[in-house]
């Protein structure tokens, strides 16, 4: 029983890593008043670019760097369309997601699967500090020990964070106070995209070591839900990520039980998504959206 509990906690941390990273990225972005529905696509793009580069160069580090570059580029295009042009954020974000998915599927076909193959690398191995719980990937440790405090500090303690929150709540007032609204939003979107890219790269470079079509499979949408569930605070966001991951790790264990042998495993796979919706239904009422959420800013 202890073993099962430890196993569930251990795999929860693994499952939570990309979700927490992507949700932190979405949090930084939304705090500046911009909804980035490109999160699914940016994860997809960096997952592919990361493993493609790693496979070509033989270096996982090079793959990670390339994944981050792809995330920053996607963020830049998204920022141009939503901040500079003021395109509807739902449309621009979904467009970015569809663009990255189709681009990567095309590139995957050209580079790897045209002759029936599949891209593979030797992924990162977990670092073992004793026991299943402390046998995790470096990126998992980095996420919870470095990225989480960093984003907390960035948003609530740093000068940039103050600017991000200011342009997210009241861009007119921020502008009058001399804060560059467009510049701050560009910065927030690109920082957010880098976190989303880390999330995508983690999946291919550490978690699975290969790339298949539909590899992100809605994780970006879960991250989006976690931000709302977390009411734009890091603590609650992490609680949401933990709950989702526990349900997910739990269903992985359930599948091994004989009494669940007859339940199609796809139904169990759907459970975490339904859990998120239930979570939103319970705690998503009257949530404090950033004041300028979805509103482009143009000086008149």
């Amino acid at each position, binding site marked *: 029983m202890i073993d099962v509990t430890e196993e569930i906690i251990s795999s929860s941390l693994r499952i939570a890593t990309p979700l927490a990273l992507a949700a932190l990225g979405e949090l930084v972005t939304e705090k500046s008043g911009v909804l980035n529905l490109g999160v699914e696509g940016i994860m997809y793009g960096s997952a592919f670019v990361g493993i493609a580069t790693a496979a070509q160069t033989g270096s996982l580090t090079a793959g990670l760097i390339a994944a981050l570059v792809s995330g920053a580029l996607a963020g830049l295009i998204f920022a141009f369309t939503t901040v*500079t042009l003021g395109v509807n954020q739902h449309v621009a974000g979904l467009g970015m997601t569809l663009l990255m998915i189709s681009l990567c599927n095309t590139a995957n076909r050209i580079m790897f699967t045209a002759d029936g193959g599949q891209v593979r690398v030797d992924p990162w191995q977990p670092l073992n500090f004793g026991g299943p719980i402390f046998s995790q990937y470096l990126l998992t440790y980095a996420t919870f020990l470095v990225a989480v405090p960093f984003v907390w500090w960035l948003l609530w303690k740093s000068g940039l964070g103050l600017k991000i929150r200011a342009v997210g709540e009241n861009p007119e007032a921020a502008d009058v106070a001399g804060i560059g609204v467009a510049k701050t939003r560009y910065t927030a979107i690109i920082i957010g995209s880098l976190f989303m890219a880390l999330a995508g790269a983690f999946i291919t470079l550490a978690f699975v070591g290969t790339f298949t079509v539909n590899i992100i499979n*809605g994780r970006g949408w879960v991250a989006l839900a976690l931000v709302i569930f977390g009411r734009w605070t890091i603590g609650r966001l992490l609680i949401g990520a933990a709950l989702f991951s526990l349900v997910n790790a739990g269903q992985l264990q359930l599948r091994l039980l004989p009494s669940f042998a007859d339940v199609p495993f*796809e*139904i169990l796979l*759907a459970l975490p*998504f339904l859990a998120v*919706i239930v979570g939103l239904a319970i705690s*998503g009422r009257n949530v404090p959206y950033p004041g300028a959420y979805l509103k482009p800013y143009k000086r008149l």
Partner: protein
Amino acid sequence: MKARFVLRASTPWWRGPLLIAAAALLTILISAIMIRWAGGAPIPAVRYMFISPLQSRFGFTESLLSATPLVFTGAAVAIAFRAGYWNIGAEGQLLAGTIGATWVGLHAESLPRIVGVTLILLAGMLFGALWALTPALLRTRLGIDEVVTTLLLNPVALLIITGLLNGPWRNSESGFPDSDVIADSTKLWIIWPNTRVHFGLALGIVIIGLCWWFVGKMSGGLKLRAVGLAPNAARIAGLPVERTLLTTALVSGGIAGLGGASEIAGVAHQLTTGISNNFGYTGVIVATLAALSFIGALLVALMFGVITVGSFSASRALEIPSQIGQLVQAVLLITVVSALVIQKYRIVWTTKKSEGRK
């Protein structure tokens, strides 16, 4: 030097078409680069993709067939967005529709065809609307953002289909994870002899017409538009905002589900995990490029039908990935939407010196 976008007082009539043409050219250029990378010759490939489907009867009717599901999802997304209800779950609603339709199709032996067809279409519509119900209730009763909930239900619908196909609906002859063929009495009529163009297309066009008539001409449609344009003003004016949103969401889901039934009963005749080639998400592109007009959505859907068929024939002839068709559609979305915004602005280049005087 810094660039600033300044709102134009008036837009010359030629700027819109010019910028859209530029967006289309940019899209073709980007696809040409990908085609070149894939080792194909860009010019023949572009001709295959955009023109050759229109040059043969087979290409043309196959384009109509490919456009059919997009007519439904385009209309579904357009009507929801017009009401300001961000339904991004047309994918899941269409998939739910295929589940309902397949269920009827597998159980409706020996019915008169008119009854069978009516039942299968109704089932698709009902399942699509049911799939849209939860996010709609969460939005209208508890105020929970429908974007996230409709998105989250898309992978769930696909998982349920995979579960059904690996379980109770596994093919009884081959054992493969695709369902048995539906009863003959539930298959849609072919409306263009000796092609695969089926009754679903006619139905889709009727749906487009109904949406156009209702949203544009009826008082209920006026309410819907008012809720979409200014929900607070509509609420103050005493319009039933929540009820309008709920009804629109269900109609939108129903239309998407009908699109799923049309695919099952019209062309696939069995459920597979690949039954939807991203039709729901593409519906968002279709509706957006049509600026949420229903007639426009029909035209964009037909154009996308051509691109889909074209990319498959280019793929066969030149050995380039057929995925390029979806890439073209996504790039087109971003470039055209950007062009539509840019046409309203002019770019002012400011130097350090002139900035001091602004």
